């Protein structure tokens, strides 16, 4: 463990939603072996907004993919809401993602032929579940999409589309929401709208959000900022300003 610990404890504790222990991910073999993750242990408590940063190839995306059950580690263990991911088959992993995990993607990934409302409800429809109307109304209110619900994605701005995506992730009240560069495809103004929404999700709705980002201003709203380099966590900090974040990144590159 070379990571300095400033805010959160890396060891498992009751109330941790996501717990990773000694994760390794190795691509290739022999000389061409690449260690994308090299013994990462980290826990995320409920109600925290965490940002994961690091230069390209640092392993931050790989970490998120493994934590979210989209990819499998070469070694180590991941617990999501108490469930060990290792050993789950594709079917069980899919159902776990469906029931416990929400996603916000860089490219929004909305279905173009469905309306905003239908896109929000999509994961629950797939699960065959009925959305809680009160909660849905709250989300619609929070996202400010009230008048745009019957519009198709092509008729929405990028910021609106991403807010739809955030609402989609929140609707099933998952244990954790993963964001993969959620502002990566937005300008600074619309980025702000989306980040506000994520912040409110944590503060007002008691959700847990883990996002990978390049954007220092995005990471600046997080309760905790993790820095990765060469597959290892090199700094695990609490709230940082954008300036502090940029300084840290410079030291990493």
């Amino acid at each position, binding site marked *: 463990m070379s990571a300095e610990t400033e805010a959160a404890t890396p060891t498992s504790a009751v109330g941790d939603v996501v717990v990773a222990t000694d994760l390794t991910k190795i691509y290739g073999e022999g000389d061409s072996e690449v260690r994308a993750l090299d013994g990462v242990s980290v826990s995320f408590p409920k109600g925290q907004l965490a940002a994961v940063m690091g230069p390209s190839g640092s392993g931050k995306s790989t970490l998120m*993919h493994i934590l*979210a059950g*989209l*990819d499998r580690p070469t070694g180590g263990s991941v617990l999501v809401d108490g469930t060990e991911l290792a050993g789950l088959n*594709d*079917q069980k992993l*899919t*159902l776990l*993602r*469906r*029931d416990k*995990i*929400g*996603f916000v*993607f860089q*490219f929004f*990934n909305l*279905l*173009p*032929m*469905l309306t905003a409302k*239908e896109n929000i409800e*999509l*994961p*629950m*429809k*797939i*699960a*065959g579940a009925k959305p809680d109307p009160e909660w849905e109304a709250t989300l619609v209110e929070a996202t400010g999409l009230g008048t745009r619900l019957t519009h198709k994605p092509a008729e929405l701005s990028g910021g609106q589309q991403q807010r739809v995506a955030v609402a*989609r992730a929140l609707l099933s009240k998952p244990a954790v929401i993963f964001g993969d560069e959620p502002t990566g495809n937005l300008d600074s103004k619309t980025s702000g709208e989306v980040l506000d929404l994520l912040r409110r999700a944590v503060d007002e709705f008691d959700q847990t959000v883990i996002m990978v980002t390049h954007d220092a201003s995005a990471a600046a709203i997080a309760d905790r900022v993790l820095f990765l380099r060469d597959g290892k966590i090199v700094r695990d900090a609490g709230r940082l300003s954008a300036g502090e974040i940029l300084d840290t990144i410079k030291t990493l590159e």
Partner: protein
Amino acid sequence: MFGLVLRGLATRKLRSALTAIAILLGVTMISGTLVLTDQIDRAFVQIFQAGNAKIDVVIKQKPPFENVQTSVYLDAAVVDQVRKVDGVKTADPFIQSEGYLIANGESLNSTGGAPSFVFSNLPQDLNPYTPIDGRLPEASGEVAVAKEIADKGKVKVGSKQQLATQDGIKDVTVVGILQYGNGDTSLGGSTTVLAPLADVQQWWALEGKASYIYVKAQDGVSQGELKDRVRAALPQQDLIVQTGREDADEQAGQLNDLIGKIIRYALLAFAGVAILVGAFIIYNTFSITVAQRTREFAMLRTIGASRRQILASVIGEAFLIGLLASVAGIVLGLGLAWGLGKLFGAIGFGLPATGLILSWQTVVVCLAVGIGITVLASIFPALRATRIAPIAALREGATLPVGRFAKFTPAIAVVIGVLGGAGMAYGLISSGSTTGRLTTLAGGAILIFLAVAMLSRYIVRPVVSVLGVPIGAVAGGVGRIASENAARNPARTAVTAAALMIGIGLVVFVTIFVGGIKASFTGAIDSSLKSEITVSARGFGGTIPAAVLPAVQGVEGVQTASPVGGTAVQIGNGGYALIGIDPTTLPEVYAFDWTDGSDALLGTLGTDKALVESTIAEELKVKPGGTVDVLSISGAKATFTVVGTYTDPTILNGIVVDQPALKPLLQSNATGLNTVFVRVADGTSVETVQAGVEEALKQFPTAQVQSNQEQKDQAASGVNTILVIFYALLALSVVISLFGIVNTLVLSIFERTREIGMLRAVGTTRRQLRAMIRWEAVITSIIGGVLGVLLGILFGWAVCKGLESDGLVFVFPTSQILIFLVLSIVAGVLAAILPARRAAKLDVLAALSYE
């Protein structure tokens, strides 16, 4: 640029392969058909050449008119004139008739529609048959039989057997087992018995007659030379003199016209349907790939490719796919021909077989059609590719520009549809040649298919919103996505569905048409016949011995036995049936549907008056009071005054005269009897009387006894066989359209890779994803199925109405249509298997990061 085309094909292997299959199957069918029919053609030539191998000159009667299938005979005494000709070594009369051996109670007749021959014996130097056991027949009552039937019936030389002849069953002794030619020529399913000339003449009522006179030349006299000498020696201008070779080629040609060409054109018609379906799929595939490659084309344009080069690259790709598919199709066609040959043999339609023949014509036709259709179908998509502006390379999500004529599409489609409807109407009601009418009919149908395919994009969304409700209820969220996906690109879904529509449409049409034929026959029996039992001719030139009538009349419980006879005649340029009836008994067994006249006319017919079936009367433009001049197949002529008209396109379809008027027009071997309608006395069981009639006619194997129900069943079974063959042939088109669905789905999934990644990430299971794709396929196939059923009903109804005067009845095939709809759903499910698997296998992360 061409290198780029090759690389493109190589990187899009699956797509290219699926596209190729669309055209490959059609080409396979063309190639298979041509190879098979060439084979049949050659086999016929071989058979007749082997038959005439020893014969230098053939003399035969010229039929009084063409296009008759009744045999004509010449005076056997002509042989005396021929024998006097210088250079003639041997000359002998020969009769070809129909009959078969009954060995140990088993009828050794032919199978699958091939003829059962009894030939008069010839001296060995003219005879194509050689005994391999025993000898040729000499004395009366002796026969020799072909090896095939001897084997089948375990017939031994010296055994006493029976021979079914026109004159009833005769006792014969088998004196020889025969081999045809040098033993390596197959005669298909036909059977042969040789009997002495005098016996054949007597048993087939051909005393003094011959089918042919065969002549052998003396050494040193050529066939041509001898032919000229014989011709010069024969003053009769109604005799035809040919060399053995000419006669063999002519007979092979006639048989080929009758069988080979029908098989060829019927199979080619179905191959044409398959090609048409393939064309839709190719058009669709190219449209989709061009749309997907918008940025690639734009990039090529930015780096300096001209529009012409873009056009050439797309068409070049089509050319290559067409070429590969055609070559593969030709090869597979050889396999198909081989398999069909085996299949025909297995179901009793034993075709005479020779080796597989791949002629250069077959290769040229297959390449031309395969490549031509592929290139043609790719032209519109290729033109659209040229309209992509270079700037599109820089835009995210650039889409293909709308075609220049897109806004006129509905109008164009309507014009095409109206033209198609007009073509069909003309084909149905015009009085032109059958070929011409069929061609306009088929052309009209193709145009209507095309118009519906063009317009069906507008019904995709409404259909989906209707289907979406039950599908959403059954499949939930994925059902909803599937519905939306199907409606996402209506043109794409419409064309995919249209390919299936053609197959299903034709299946429904054929069902209705064939059902109409069946219904017309059963309807005619129900409405016209008052008799319960019918005695009719089984083969044998359609005639039964005169002795059948008194035999039937003698059966207990028979109230009326009414004889009907007939002959082929020519009136004007058309061939018709002249039907001889018995005016006193006919009204008891048959109900005329008079258009002009009454039963009272029957007694007044005498020898110079006739009744004419109403459709024929229209064709001949005669009304009561007018006259018809008939030329009989025997060469005799007569004139009848028309006194009445009636409608019956099925049972008495011809010109009805009193029996005495028919007699002088008959050939010598015709008895003037082909049917006896039997009315059973009131209060007597039909079964008992039928059994009695059968017993009384045991001696006459050519007479077939059937109840009305048996007649209907026989007609139905014949018609059903045809229906099954049509279904099998149309199944190919349906299979091709399945590949179309597969292709469209694969391409769409490829387009939606990232969406699929998202769906999987947010918790869609593989099973749900497969279901989603399956539902999309099912929606497409339902659209195709419903459109096909509707068009099939429309075509069926139009054709049945148009041919109403020929007795065709429109019957709505409710149960079959339900089955076809279910089958089209099954088709969708099947088509979804491969695409669904591919989609489910996609790696979530890779799919998510897919651009």
